[in-house]
Structure formats: structure tokens, C-alpha cells
């Protein structure tokens, strides 16, 4: 067996070495492009998913979101709950929000949306909205007549949008806010933020103190956001929170992501699967054509090899080795191309409407692509060589 393998390697090596260099280069380049295609698009799709997940954590719900139990509008004893949560090692911070439905009016424009209250000191330990102020300033704890607007709510002057907005409010402008309880107040726009998260950019923030004065509430919240030091430990902390006696509805960011974000990722995953199948079919066809042409051109030589007493399994194996060579060389060159391409895109992320996308290459994806490409190379190398090697010797020699 070993000696037969040695002969197969010898024949394959000679065939590649003395073969047409142009054909070899072209084949390897095509294989490398197929490998790049197998990795690149899925890595972009994963990058979109990861980008949206990060945005969800950074701007919307942090790692863990605590909401009131069903039938309750608010969480009570918020101060005490936050104190308990903050005392746990691994918790980076907590921030309580009131959420109120509100109508925002500026000149002739009015938009209904969600108005959040924040404690600015707590909030900066939990979300990164404060890093995304594109105009003006972030709220301070004592602000009572000032408001922070998301860019999608404020609108941009001269820019049309599918969503309703206030038509280009600027920092320093005053807008009227009608709360769900009928209270109407006027606020000066202190800052405008742009996170690219469609959920965050359509909202507005006032301070907790101001919201409590409007709603007539104290030590309550519509939600508490919890930021953890380490992503991936959410389930563990969820259990710890329950053990602390927190009986509210505790959700991880993944629970929240399974909705809209989940649907978007599912759609991309379908595109991904179709693209992968097409790439693999391309790989089969390319390798099949190359090996087929190779074996057809070497029909006579295969006949000669059989005539001198070389077993057809040695001959078939030599062609399979050749196809594995094209495959391995393609994977190696494809990996080098991917390394530079992905490094570039990590440094310069793609700007998608919903997020900035950096390709995310998971080891499983690489292993899966390498195995798939090797498998199709084996099949595509085997079939035509098996067909030719099984021909009658004289027919192979004389056609």
C-alpha cells in the first residue's frame, strides 16, 4: 500500500511539474477565489450579526435587561435593587430607565415615539451613547429643561427620510413634548446623538429627576440595564440575580436579539447558504473540468501505465493527489488573500445602514470550508480518473 502510494505521488508530482504552468496557476487562482468566497461572505454576515449584537448591548439593552413582571408598569424599590446588583463582582454598572410614550413637536412637525429617562452618571457606566454625541453635549444629572435627541428623531435638514422626524432640529432649539399623561413641557435640545442603531437613534432622553417630576413617581423604573464586565456570562448572572431575590422579568441581550435582529440574521444566513452551495458547485465543476481535460489528454498514457502492469488504483490515486494539490495550493493562497482582506476591513469597517461591519471569521467556518473544498476536490478528482482508468487498455492507447 505504501509503495503504491509512493508511485501515485511520483506520477502526480511529475504530472504537475511537467504540466502546463499556465493551467496550473489558473487552476490554483480559481481555487483560491472559491475559498475566499466560501469564507468572505459568511464572515461579513457574521460581522453584521455581531455588529448588531454589539449595538444592542452598547446602546439599547446592555448585557442584561430587567423589566417589570407581567401586569406591572414599573419595577419598585429600584434603588435597593441597583445597590444589590452593583455589589456583585462582575457587574460593571446598572442604569434605571423610565420609558414614556411622548409626542415631540417642533414647528409644524410632530413625531410620536419613546422618551427615556436616565441618570447620566449611571448611564455612562452602562451604555455608550455618550460617545456618539455628534452635536452639543450629553445630559448632566441636574438638567431639568433639556433633552437629548437621536438623529432619526431630530432629522437632518435637507435630507429626506422614510421615517417621520422633526425636520432638522438643532442644538439650542426648543421642542415641545406631550407626555402620555397629558403633561406638556418645553425642552431645549442639549445634544444630538447618532449611534446607527435604529432602535436608539429614534429615541430621546431626559433626566430621571425631570421624568419623575412629570410622572409623579419615585424609586421606580420601567427597566434596569445591567452592564457586565464580561460578555458571555449573562446566563450565569441571570441565575445570580434570581438568587438575590429579584423577582422581575430578567432577560439577556440574546433574548432581546432573537426578535428583529434574529430575523435579519436569518435572512442573511439564507443568502449565505445559497452562496456557499454555489461556491461548492463551482469548485466541483472547475476541478472536474481540469481533471477531466487532464485525464482525456492523458488517456494514452493511462493506457500505457496499465499495459506495463500499473494497477488502476495507483493511477486514480495519482489524479486525486493532483486535485488535492490544486485544492491545497488554492486554500493556502486564498488564506493569504483573506488575511490581508480581513485585516484591511477590520481596520476600515464597512458602513452598512444599520451598523459598521467588520468581518468575523469563526474557526468553525474555516474548518468547514477547508473540509468542504477537500471533499469536493476528492470527488471531482476521482470520478474522471476512475472513468478513464477503467477503459479498455487498447481503447485508451489508440482512442
Amino acid at each position, binding site marked *: 500500500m505504501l509503495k503504491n502510494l509512493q508511485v501515485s505521488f511520483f506520477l502526480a508530482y511529475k504530472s504537475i511539474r511537467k504540466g502546463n504552468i499556465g493551467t496550473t496557476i489558473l487552476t490554483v487562482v480559481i481555487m483560491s477565489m472559491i475559498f475566499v468566497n466560501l469564507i468572505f461572505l459568511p464572515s461579513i454576515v457574521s460581522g453584521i450579526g455581531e455588529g448588531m449584537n454589539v449595538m444592542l448591548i452598547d446602546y439599547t439593552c446592555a448585557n442584561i435587561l430587567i423589566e417589570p413582571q407581567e401586569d406591572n408598569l414599573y419595577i419598585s424599590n429600584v434603588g435597593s435593587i441597583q445597590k444589590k446588583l452593583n455589589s456583585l463582582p462582575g457587574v460593571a454598572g446598572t442604569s434605571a430607565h423610565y420609558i414614556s410614550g411622548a409626542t415631540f413637536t417642533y414647528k409644524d412637525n410632530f413625531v410620536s415615539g419613546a422618551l427615556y429617562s436616565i441618570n447620566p452618571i449611571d448611564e455612562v457606566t452602562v451604555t455608550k451613547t455618550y460617545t456618539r454625541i455628534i452635536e452639543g453635549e450629553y445630559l448632566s444629572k441636574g438638567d431639568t429643561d433639556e433633552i437629548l435627541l437621536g438623529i432619526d428623531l431630530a432629522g437632518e435638514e435637507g435630507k429626506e427620510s422614510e421615517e417621520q422626524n422633526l425636520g432638522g432640529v438643532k442644538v439650542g432649539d426648543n421642542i415641545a413634548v406631550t407626555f402620555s399623561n397629558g403633561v406638556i413641557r418645553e425642552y431645549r435640545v442639549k445634544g444630538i446623538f447618532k449611534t446607527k442603531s435604529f432602535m436608539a437613534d429614534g429615541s430621546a432622553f431626559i433626566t430621571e429627576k425631570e421624568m419623575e417630576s412629570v410622572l409623579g413617581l419615585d424609586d421606580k423604573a420601567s427597566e434596569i440595564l445591567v452592564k457586565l464586565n464580561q460578555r458571555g456570562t449573562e446566563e450565569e448572572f441571570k441565575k445570580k440575580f434570581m438568587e438575590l431575590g429579584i423577582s422581575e422579568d430578567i432577560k439577556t441581550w440574546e433574548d432581546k436579539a432573537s426578535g428583529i435582529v434574529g430575523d435579519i440574521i436569518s435572512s442573511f444566513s439564507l443568502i449565505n447558504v445559497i452562496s456557499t452551495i454555489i461556491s461548492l458547485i463551482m469548485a466541483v465543476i472547475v476541478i472536474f473540468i481540469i481533471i477531466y481535460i487532464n485525464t482525456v489528454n492523458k488517456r494514452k498514457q493511462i493506457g500505457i501505465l496499465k499495459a506495463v502492469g*500499473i494497477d488502476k488504483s495507483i493511477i486514480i490515486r495519482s489524479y486525486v493527489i493532483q486535485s488535492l494539490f490544486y485544492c491545497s495550493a488554492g486554500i493556502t493562497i486564498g488564506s493569504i488573500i483573506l488575511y490581508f482582506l480581513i485585516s484591511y476591513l477590520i481596520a476600515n469597517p464597512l458602513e452598512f445602514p444599520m451598523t459598521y461591519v467588520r468581518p468575523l471569521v469563526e474557526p468553525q467556518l474555516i474548518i468547514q470550508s477547508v473540509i468542504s473544498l477537500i471533499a469536493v476536490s476528492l470527488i471531482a478528482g476521482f470520478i474522471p480518473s476512475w472513468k478513464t482508468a477503467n477503459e479498455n487498455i487498447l481503447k485508451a492507447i489508440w482512442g
Partner: protein
Amino acid sequence: MIQVQDLKRSYIMGKVEVHALKGVSFEIEQGEFVAIMGPSGSGKSTLLHQLGLLDTPTSGKILIDGVDVLRLSDREKTIYRLTQLGYVFQDYAILPELTAAENVYLPAMVQGKSKELYLRSSRELLETVGLGDRLHHLPQELSGGEQQRVAIARALINKPKILFADEPCANLDTESSRHILELFRKLNEELGQTILMVSHEEWHKKYVDRIIYLKDGLIEKM
């Protein structure tokens, strides 16, 4: 050594059945140099293909040293060709990607001989056929006669019981042909190599021990 009994081979060409061999019987002793001669279409090459196990006859028997070789499986026939038979084609049939030495030692390599042994054997054989200075030349760098000598060396590398040569001089000039026939004669006389050669050239007769004449798929005379 070789016993051929009532060997027949028919082909279907389109809608016509062609009887290339119509029942051929003869014997060849070990160490004989025999020529199979006859006009075109007489069945000479077809007969050699059956004896060399490159084709399967319609009926009949071929015994080599008492072994009914037609009863061997495909795999056994392959091994038999590798270890017991040598075959020289009229159009050289050497592999263009391999050097002269590599072409020669390939069957020995497949047989599992040590590298040292097959390198030495191939060098000696190429020296025997007069190509000691052409070991590392590719076929495209050799003349027709030299390529045919490489093919002969390859056929001999595993020390076959019988060497079959199918019109080995058909594509060669007279001088090259004479060299090849003298080489066969030498192999036969000095090494006792059994050789069965197909030819249609009358002047080749003087090199062989015996001639089997074929005509229309039958033996005309022996």
C-alpha cells in the same frame, strides 16, 4: 512455455462482426525468438494483444508455463503483466513527463524494489541498449530509435518471462531498425530472453529463430 489453443477474437464494428482471429494454435519454447508475420489485417497485432493480456479473446486458451492466464482476474492479469511480461509498442509508448531512467524504472518501483536496486537496474539496462549517456533526457530530447530503446529497457526491467514487441521498427529508419533487431538478437542469445515480435518486413526474418505466418486470422505456415 507458451501454448495457444484455438484462439479466436471477434469484434463488432458498427453492424458488422469482424473475425480477427479464427482459431489459432501454436507453441513457443523458452528462449525462442519468434516473429509473427503476415499481410496487413491478418491478425498479427490482435494475436500479440491477446498473448500480452492487453485484450481478452472471444474463446480459446493461453497457457504460459502451465498457467491458464485467461482465467486470471483483472487484478491478477495486471500483476502478471508487471512481473512476467514485457511489452514494446510500435509507437514507443513511453511517458513524456518522465526521463529515460524514470520511464525504465517505473515498473520496478511499482513492484516494490528498493530505490538503489531500481536505479542501478535502469542505468544498466539503458547502458545495454546504448543509452547510458541519456539517462536524464526527456523523450522529446530523444530520437525515435532512442525512444524505442527506452521502451525496450522498460519492458526488461522486471526480467520478464516473455518480451512482446508489436512492430517495434514500424516508425524507425532502416539504421535504427537494424539496431533494435540486433539488440533483440543479443538479448535472446546472451540472456536467453524469449521474444515474440510482430513484423511485416521480410528483411527482419534473418534475426529470428522461427516465423509464424498469419493470413486472414489463421496460421498459414509455421
